[in-house]
């Protein structure tokens, strides 16, 4: 087949193997090979990739929802009896610390047990995808745990014991507040300031001030601002146009994350979603993007890899599928480009928020009546 330049493209297999990917994610939810053991402390993120991936594939029926829900709740770090650990509340990535299994409080005191911001984010998102009503989430504790992670410069640590701080965790924090529908968990002004200062001379956004602009951190920044509802307040049109230009220049066939770097499947989502949030994704070349993503598909085992002829992994499988969803691949659910969950899951979340609001109004009304 001829492409627009008139040259002939090699015959590549460019069909999307839906069922292989469903099986790939199912296996991710069971056992991973030992070479993935470095993901031990972030197993919950793998669950998120698998669940959200299956959701986008419209294949959540293969999942044992009650069982997974219980497992996720067992990862919640709940307040102890004396509430002395509120700054450490949220979700863990796995049982790696060895705290006794429990899906309800009070929390078990342990000198080193604390939540991780990316696990709180993916834990909440996974529960929403599973259709849970978050009634067993201690929301105030999660927000207290989140507040404890924000630094003076507006960025966030991952854990209260301290860690590196960068745009990834700003995004996680924004997602947590958005899902819990409560922005008291962060100082929004400081976070916005951190984002502004992370914009590079070349109009992309780095992990922090002075750092090289990068597709991942650009997504984190723009998506966080969109979740806050502050995008246009923070960046006037001229700056948004500059960011658009930086992002759109990332397309080579698929997308790369930085100028003069090789393309990688996951940037089809990181940069693609950013372009969608900036309302210019439609001006990218869908065909070349699709062809690249599918060239990284593993036809035997399922999933996607960063490059062709490489081993697939849960992250690239998930973002490959999300990248295809952005271009409107048939039989894939649409993905919310800022929150990174399906439209179906988002709808469930919005319904939950409506229920919370109504409950709040009812209880205020009762208070007024009885006062």
């Amino acid at each position, binding site marked *: 087949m001829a492409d*627009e*330049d008139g040259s002939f493209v090699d015959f590549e297999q460019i069909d*999307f193997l839906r069922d292989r990917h469903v099986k790939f994610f199912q*296996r*991710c*939810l*069971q*056992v*991973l*090979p*030992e*070479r*993935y*053991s470095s993901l*031990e*402390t972030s*197993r919950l993120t*793998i*669950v998120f990739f698998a669940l959200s991936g299956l959701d986008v594939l419209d294949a959540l029926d293969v999942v*044992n929802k009650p*069982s*997974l829900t219980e*497992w*996720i709740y067992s990862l919640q770090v709940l307040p102890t009896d004396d509430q002395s650990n509120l700054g450490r509340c949220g979700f863990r990535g796995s*049982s*790696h*610390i*060895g705290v006794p*299994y429990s899906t309800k409080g009070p929390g078990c005191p*342990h000198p*080193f047990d604390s939540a*991780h911001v990316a696990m709180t984010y993916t834990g909440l998102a996974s529960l929403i995808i599973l259709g849970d009503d978050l009634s067993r989430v201690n929301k105030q504790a999660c927000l207290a745990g989140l507040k404890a992670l924000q630094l003076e410069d507006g960025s966030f640590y991952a*854990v209260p014991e301290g*860690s*590196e701080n960068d745009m990834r965790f700003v995004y996680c924090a924004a997602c947590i507040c958005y899902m819990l529908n409560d922005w008291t968990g962060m100082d929004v002004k400081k976070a916005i300031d951190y984002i502004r200062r992370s914009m*590079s001379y*070349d*109009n992309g956004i*780095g*992990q922090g001030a*002075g*750092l*090289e602009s990068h597709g991942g951190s650009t997504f984190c920044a723009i998506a966080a601002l969109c979740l806050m509802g502050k995008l246009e307040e923070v960046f006037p049109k001229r700056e948004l146009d500059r960011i658009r*230009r*930086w992002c759109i220049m990332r397309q*080579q*066939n698929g997308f790369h994350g*930085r*100028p*003069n770097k090789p393309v990688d499947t996951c940037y089809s989502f990181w940069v693609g979603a950013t372009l969608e949030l900036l309302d210019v994704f439609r*001006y*990218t*070349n*869908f*065909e*070349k993007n*699709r062809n690249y993503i599918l060239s990284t598909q593993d036809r035997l085992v399922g999933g996607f890899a960063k490059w062709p002829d490489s081993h697939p992994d849960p992250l690239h499988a998930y973002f490959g599928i999300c990248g295809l969803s952005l*271009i*409107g691949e*048939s039989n894939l659910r649409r993905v919310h480009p800022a929150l990174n969950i399906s439209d179906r899951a988002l709808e469930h979340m919005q319904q939950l928020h409506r229920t919370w609001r109504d409950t709040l109004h009812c209880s205020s009304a009762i208070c007024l009546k009885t006062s």
Partner: protein
Amino acid sequence: MTCFPLPEMTSKRRDWGDCSATTDLRFIAAATGETCEASSARSAPAVRFSPPRCPDWRRSPGRGWTRGRRKERRSRRWTASRRWASRSPSRGVTCFTVTDVFDYFRALLKKDEKSERALALTTEAIELNAANYTVWHYRRVLLQALQKDLREEMRYITAIIEDQPKNYQVWHHRRMVVEWLNDPSEELDFIAEILSQDNKNYHAWQHRQWVIQEYKLWDGELDYVEELLEEDVRNNSAWNQRHFVVSHTSGYSDPSVLEQEVQYTLKQIKKAPHNESAWNYLKGILQDRGLSSHPGLLEQVLELKETHCSPYLIAFLVDLYEDMLESMDGGQGQEEPLSKALVLCELLARETDTIRKEYWRYVARSLQTRFGSGDPSVPTVETEPQTTPASD
């Protein structure tokens, strides 16, 4: 090919040092009963790892017993020489599983034990999973409680980072040790060594910027950047570092500095015209003052267009004309720069940057809307709707 092997359990526990039963970690681990396997057995375990087979012990002549590797590692000098379990004549060959090490680790963690054996255990745990941030945190607690030699720790973390330079935890640990020692003297050389293996390693550059800013080590950094750009003028990280250094030292407000940077960049562009990084740098240092206000720049770029053209050059011209239009602020003479900009957008769409043809047409439409007079003689651009490719 099977990617997902069934779990195999091998467990040969041994005494953990010369300790009595009450302090033997094996018994503590059993008493707490809270091993990973125990807790995960109680619920449908989501995402478990199959434990590895017992590590391959083999005897190397002259080195005694060493453990086989899961994958090739470059720098094992440190841990091989310090592995306390492996070379004990009276105890013979030792065999650990990952579960053993981490079961003991969990037991120590719960006790919050502060001892040499705890520190040694963190070394083992890190060897198995250097991404476990809890182990690193516990190690830092121990280093301080036991008042360990931090210079020794610097040597340790140097070896670990050499081996796993894309791990977040190891760089954070190094930063903590440097802060405790308040001694950055090894950092620039060390980071340069890491960058010599991968000159775009984001962690390395991040650590480098932190060290330079924290300890004011700006001297010589511009020279280092220029060395890297000599090796590879397309290294975007090096261009970024250039901006980092200049903006924090002389700044760009000094006109002679700005001109020097502009000329340096144009020189690099002549050497390698198809280089987005150089063009981004040129635009970046000039855009806030207005691309069209820099004297002689338009002429220099138009000259370059003849012999060193690229999509980035054409896009730069579009931006320059846009800036010209903005500074005219609706006054006279807008037709010429507008027409030039529109022609260039169409050139990009049709010829020089076809992958972004829809985008360049969108840019042209925006320019037309903002600066067009509605005069039918001014060229406008046809729009074609984007269609998603057929997919089965």
